[in-house]
C-alpha cells in the first residue's frame, strides 16, 4: 500500500556541516536520501521504515570526480551516467563502467548514485563486484571527523555495514594500479536490461609473460548474504596457467566459497552453476 506522505519528513540541509550536525545530534533518527531510486520504491509500497530523511543530493562536497596520481576519487553522489561519461573511468575502470551501464535503464542511471548503491547494501547490487575487484576504499565523514575503510570490510552481514548512524559516505577511492588487468564483467538476469541480477560477476587478471596467472581478482554479487570477493578461488589460480585442470579446480573451490540461496529471482543451484560457468568463461578468455 502506498505510504501516507505527511508521515514522512524530508529536509534539505543547507550545508554538509548542517547535515552532519543533525546526524550527530539525533543519531539514528535521520537517514541520507540521495538519488531516491531505491528509497522511493519502498515509499511507494509503504515499506519505508524510516520516517526522517535528509536530502543530500545538492551538497557539493559529496559529488564530483577527483583525480590524483594514486587515486580516482568518486564522490558518493556520482551517478551511473557520470561514471560512464568520464574518459578516465572508461579507460582505467572498465568493470565499473560496465556495471553502471547495466544498472537499470537510462533514467535510473541518470539519478541513481554509486554511494547509494553501496550504502543500500543489497547483495544483488551491480557495482560492488567491480568495486571489490578494484580494491576500492570508502571515505566516511561525520561531525567528529573522517575515516577510511577498505570496501571489502564494509559489509559485515546481510544489510549490515561498518557504518555509524552519524556518518555519511563521502567518496569512493579507486587505486590507479589496475589499468593493466584483463577484465571480465557479466550480469545475468531474467532479461538483458533493467533486471536485478541472478548472478553478477566481475573479475580481473594479470598475466605473466609465459601466460600464467600472476594475480586474479574475483568479485561476485547475488551469491551470498553480502557481495563477495572470492579470495580462496583467487589463491587457487595464482601462478597457474588457465588450462582445463586449473579451471576445473577453481570452479570447485568457487562453489564452496559462495553461498547462494533460492529466492524469487532464481535458485541456489542455478546461481552456483552460472557462477562457475562465468568463472570458466573468464579463465578461458585469458588463454593466448
Amino acid at each position, binding site marked *: 500500500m502506498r505510504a501516507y506522505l505527511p508521515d514522512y519528513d524530508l529536509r534539505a540541509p543547507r550545508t554538509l556541516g548542517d547535515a552532519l550536525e543533525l546526524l550527530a545530534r539525533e543519531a539514528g533518527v535521520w537517514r541520507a536520501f540521495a538519488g531516491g531510486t531505491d528509497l522511493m520504491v519502498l515509499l*511507494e509500497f509503504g515499506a519505508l521504515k524510516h520516517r526522517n*530523511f535528509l536530502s543530500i543530493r545538492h551538497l557539493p562536497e559529496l559529488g564530483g570526480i577527483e583525480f590524483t596520481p594514486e587515486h580516482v576519487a568518486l564522490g558518493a553522489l556520482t551517478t551511473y551516467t557520470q561514471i560512464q561519461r568520464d574518459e578516465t573511468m572508461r579507460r582505467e575502470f572498465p568493470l565499473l563502467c560496465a556495471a553502471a551501464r547495466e544498472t537499470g*535503464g*537510462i533514467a535510473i542511471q*541518470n539519478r541513481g548514485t554509486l554511494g547509494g548503491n553501496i550504502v543500500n547494501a543489497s547483495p544483488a547490487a551491480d557495482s560492488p563486484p567491480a568495486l571489490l575487484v578494484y580494491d576500492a576504499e570508502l571515505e566516511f565523514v561525520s561531525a567528529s571527523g573522517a575515516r577510511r575503510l577498505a570496501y571489502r570490510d564494509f559489509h559485515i552481514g546481510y544489510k549490515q555495514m561498518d557504518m555509524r548512524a552519524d556518518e555519511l559516505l563521502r567518496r569512493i577511492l579507486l587505486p590507479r594500479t589496475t589499468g593493466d588487468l584483463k577484465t571480465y564483467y557479466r550480469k545475468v538476469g531474467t532479461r538483458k536490461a533493467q533486471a536485478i541480477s541472478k548472478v553478477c560477476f566481475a573479475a580481473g587478471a594479470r598475466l605473466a609473460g609465459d601466460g600464467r596467472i600472476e594475480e586474479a581478482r574475483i568479485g561476485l554479487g547475488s551469491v551470498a548474504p553480502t557481495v563477495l570477493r572470492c579470495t580462496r578461488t583467487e589463491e587457487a589460480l595464482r601462478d597457474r596457467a588457465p588450462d582445463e585442470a586449473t579451471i576445473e579446480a577453481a570452479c570447485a573451490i568457487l562453489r564452496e566459497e559462495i553461498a547462494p540461496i533460492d529466492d524469487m529471482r532464481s535458485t541456489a543451484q542455478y546461481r552456483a552453476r552460472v557462477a562457475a560457468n562465468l568463472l570458466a568463461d573468464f579463465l578461458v578468455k585469458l588463454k593466448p
Partner: protein
Amino acid sequence: MTEGTSRIDVACTVNGTARRLRVPAMARLLDVLREDLGLTGTKEGCGEGECGACSVFIDGELVNSCLVPVLQVERAEIKTIEGVSAGDAELHVVQQAFIECGGAQCGICTPGMVLAAISLLEHTPQPTDADIRHGLAGNLCRCTGYMKIFDAVVRACARAGVKA
C-alpha cells in the same frame, strides 16, 4: 495524493513556466505534475522505476518522475511531454515519426518513449540498433512489440534538427 499538513515551498520551472508549489516534501514529482499542475501527459505505469511511463526531463536529464521527491526539484528545470513540441501546430520530430510509423497503440508508454527517444538522439544523434535498444530499455510497451517504436526512432534521427 498531495494533501497533508507539513508542506514545503518549491520553486521550479515546468515547460518554461516558473512555478511555485506548496507540497509535501516527499510527494512524487509524478503526482505533483499530474494532480497539482494538471499535466496528465506524464503517465503512471509501475510506480517503481521499471517501466519509464513517467519519464520527464530534469535539467536536461531523463528521469523517472515516480522516483523523485518534489523537494529535490527546487530550482530545477522540468520538461514534460507537454513541453517538447514548439506549439500546438508543430509536433516534435520524434512525435511526428511515432505517428507516421505507428509507434503508439494504447498510448500509456508513448510520452515516456518519446522523451527517452529524444534523450537518446540528443546524446547519440546517429544511434545503432543496439544503441536504440539500450536507450529505450527502461521503457516498457505492452502493445507494439517495439518494432514500430524502433522504426520511429530511426526515422526521427534520419531527419535533421533533432532537438529536445
